[in-house]
């Protein structure tokens, strides 16, 4: 085995998932559409006053982001589980946590990244000002991979179950709370033109911890689900 074979493994798993998603565009478009629709629902439900919307915007955007990442999570391991390639990944001599890392990264590219890119537009819908706009994009940039990592643990635990989807959201959503708190507080602070580096740093720290620990948890959960 050549020395760069770990990279090859990472890229082959990653590119397989991303290519599959691009062939079937709905996987990329649907979460985005869902994100947009949830954001649209809030002004209709609570009233169109710009001041009120501006106050609630960080929370609404982040709750919408949480829910739309949940959409893709169920499919993260389900297809591979059904066609048996997940079993092959587990049986392969390569570390499972590495291929899992690639899969989570692919999930983020498919659902998280488009959200980050579209976030400025959606933030404008909620009357967020330009300072808060930058914070929104930054928190989403750091926070959405974190959501993918945590969510993948739930997806791995429930992949062997028939009706895993709802159960997975029950398991995962409580674990999302710290991300939600720090991300929305960063946006709130930035809209008061204060420094929000601290919250971003904590989010970054959580991402660093999650990217090390989550693949281990995910791979052991997958082993339980497949066996």
């Amino acid at each position: 085995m050549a020395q760069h074979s770990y990279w090859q493994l990472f890229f082959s798993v990653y590119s397989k998932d991303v290519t599959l998603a691009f062939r079937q565009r709905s996987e990329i478009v649907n979460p985005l559409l869902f994100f947009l629709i949830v954001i649209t629902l809030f002004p209709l439900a609570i009233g169109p006053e710009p001041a009120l919307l501006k106050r609630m915007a960080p929370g609404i955007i982040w709750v919408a982001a949480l829910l739309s990442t949940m959409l893709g999570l169920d499919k993260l391991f389900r297809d591979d589980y059904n066609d048996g390639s997940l079993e092959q990944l587990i049986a392969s001599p390569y570390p499972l946590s590495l291929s899992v890392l690639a899969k989570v990264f692919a999930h983020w590219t498919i659902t998280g990244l488009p959200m980050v890119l579209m976030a400025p537009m959606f933030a404008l819908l909620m009357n967020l000002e330009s300072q808060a706009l930058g914070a929104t994009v930054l928190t989403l940039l750091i926070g959405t991979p974190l959501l993918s990592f945590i969510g993948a643990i739930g997806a791995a635990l429930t992949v062997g179950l028939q009706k895993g989807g709802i159960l997975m959201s029950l398991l995962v959503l409580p674990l999302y709370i710290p991300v939600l708190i720090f991300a929305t507080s960063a946006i709130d602070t930035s809209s008061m033109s204060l420094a929000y580096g601290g919250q971003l740093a904590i989010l970054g720290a959580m991402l660093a911890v999650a990217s090390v620990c989550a693949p281990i948890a995910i791979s052991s959960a997958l082993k339980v689900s497949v066996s």
Partner: protein
Amino acid sequence: MWKWLHPYAKAERAYQLCNTLMPYFAVITVVCLTVGWVWGLAYAPADYQQKDSYRIIFIHVPSAILSMGAYSSMAIAAIIALVWQIRNAELAVISIAPVGAAMTAIALITGAAWGKPMWGAWWVWDARLTSELILLFLYLGVLSLYHAFEDKKSAGRAACILAVVGVINLPIIHFSVEWWNTLHQGATITKFDTSAIDSSMLWPLLINIIAFAGFVGVVTLIRLKNEILQCERHRPWVRELVGRGE
């Protein structure tokens, strides 16, 4: 120590250990619960500020402490189960989870009933109440994950993984929620000597804490015995045991 501990990885020995421990826990629970409740309800002096409503503390604080204590012991059992692959530890996780969930529910209900006369609202989005609620979600997550699996072997492993993930997240959740909002009064018992509470109230509180701990012990042991029997039901020792009418 390993030589001493290892036999208890066997189901039969663990079952016998449960049987030996049970009477002690049962006696502690019955005695302390009776003394604690009567003392707390009838004999402890009324608080000068909160009057008699403070008596809720005698069940609120023990259940809150035990809700977290039960979660940590569940997580320790889960780590043991995952690292050393001990089936009995998995069963212990599943036996503690409902008891811990009940403790959390009691803490929440009594907290609400105390909050209404004191803060004027049944529910306040304060840091500790919120983390307690999230703790309940974590417990329910472990339980529903376990019951969702047909195969109880993988169900136990999956529940263990979730419990460990939860315990890693719990401090993060706790501190983030704390930082998010704090309205709750400070911890009642921090150190014994500088305790903010008078000894006439502290003693019944401590007795109640012991009583609740004993209750958690008793019910966990009963449930653990059930789980062991359930998964060993085809073994001869279980048949012998049931045949003897025990």
